[in-house]
């Protein structure tokens, strides 16, 4: 999996300065505590979050408010988690979701 350079920075770390470590595609990422998984991933690389189940195109968050379902990831083995709604927790394991189309059609 290609890892790109993030197009975002944490400009103004959280009030507490606390961090947690999550594992994105098995790689440890230190991120501010209390933020959403979507923010954590966008702050780490510029790759996609999931592939469209219909046509395997790369997708990443569009609305960031729980409506578009373009930020679906696998969290601790559970698929179809909306990264924009899930807060990060210490030790959380996050993977990109590549659903194979035959599985769902």
């Amino acid at each position, binding site marked *: 999996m290609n890892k790109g350079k*993030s*197009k*975002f*920075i*944490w*400009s*103004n*770390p*959280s*009030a507490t300065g606390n961090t947690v470590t999550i594992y994105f595609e098995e790689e440890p990422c230190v991120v*501010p505590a*209390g*933020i*959403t998984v*979507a*923010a*954590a991933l*966008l*702050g780490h690389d*510029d*790759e*996609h*979050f999931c592939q*469209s*189940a*219909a*046509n395997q*195109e*790369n*997708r*990443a*968050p*569009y*609305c*960031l*408010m*729980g*409506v*578009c*379902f*373009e930020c*679906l990831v696998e969290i601790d083995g*559970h698929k*179809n988690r909306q990264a*924009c*709604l*899930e*807060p990060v927790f210490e030790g959380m394991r996050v993977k990109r979701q590549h659903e194979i189309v035959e599985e769902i059609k």
Partner: protein
Amino acid sequence: MKNAYDAIIIGAGPAGLACSTELSKSGLDVAVLDEQAGPGGQIYRNISKASPGQHSILGDDYTAGLKLVQAFQEASLDFFPRTRVWQAEPTGEVFMSADGRSRKLSAKYLVLSTGAMERPVPFPGWTLPGVMTCGGMSNLFKDSSLSPTEPVVLAGSGPLLWLIAEHLFALQAPVAAILDTTPLGQIFPAMKDMPKALLRFGFMMKGVKMIAAVHRTALKKKVPIYRNVKKLCAEGDGRLQCVKAKSGKKDLVFDTSLLLVSEGIIPNTSLFRQVGCAHKWDSVQRYWYPDVASDGRTNLPAVFIAGDGNFVHGAKSAELKGRLTALTIAKEMHRMSKADYRRLTKQIGDELQKELLPRPFIDALYAPRPDLFSMTDETVVCRCEGVTAGRIRDLVGQGYTDHNEIKAIIRCGMGPCQGRMCGSAVLELVAEGSGLQPKEIRQHRLRPPIKPVSLQELANSNLGDSDES
């Protein structure tokens, strides 16, 4: 586990917070459900944890929410954060999932305060990673103070576009260009609503000053602002690399990794449609909104709607609508005298009327432009299922004018978002191809579950009726 309440409020934005706090104060047993990890909705997202730096960038309109959230946190009620509601019934039952299991709650009254969302407008390349909404950028900043490092292109029409530009400038984030898609001359149809709007001169001037300040900063930072922008298009191999558009006869091309779009705000009506609330069509802002009386009542006796989900009027109005709804329920539950009810509804109703004065002008000024949904045939409309505008136009040409039929034939609106992202566009494509008025076209139905539920969650569920509290 307790599962019966006097009232269940769905959505902890300004309307839900005000309504639930008020109901709890009148002694009612209240549950509040929200998808996010904390109260505040989109507008006051993460407000109780945001740093002073975030507050200073987001300004007084954000910080104003603190009082509301504090009152909510002090109120005696049950708050269920990180909870997805996937079905509600006119009888007051609510099915939800949280922590990997499903539950059923029930109440005498439901208040649906699910708020608003950005109007999803398909254009070529809008599915590429790197294209997101202005509201999405704002949420990233509120959540975690993320700010872009490479030059951003902003495109769209309406106050949110300028507000996000203001925030990006304040963050010293690089901006490549601002593309204003408002058609020239849209001010003329809006003029008739101007006198009423000017009764709230202070509010209007605040907006004018904000937009003027963005223009001044843009000039200083040499950020170009283009008017009357059309034919917006995003390109890239696997992610956004380039934005193209037209401003008059001029071709615009920007190499960029982030495009933020905003084409107005519409009520998020999915839960209202699933539960069976009646809707009306607004021909200026071109959206369906639920038919709700000023006291929050819908066509279903046990179901109330409050906030921007009712009609997009902004955070302050949402709060007032939440209060009015709470008063009505408190009176029905005999927790309030008729005299108090009359006095308080008059007082809050007057405040709301004042708040609403500028809205017709703003709605007309930033009405969706006539060619907003004139996307090319190749443009993906249904993001979940990859259905293009051309395939929808084909079906409309064959006489299909009902989104529900179109969905059954080509899966448009059948994916996890359940038509939330394609609904507006499909409606406009049907109107364009059939000559029907949108209000004559059947609405897209939502059937439960309106949010994906895993079989595991259902297996772990507690959907029984017994109240073990």
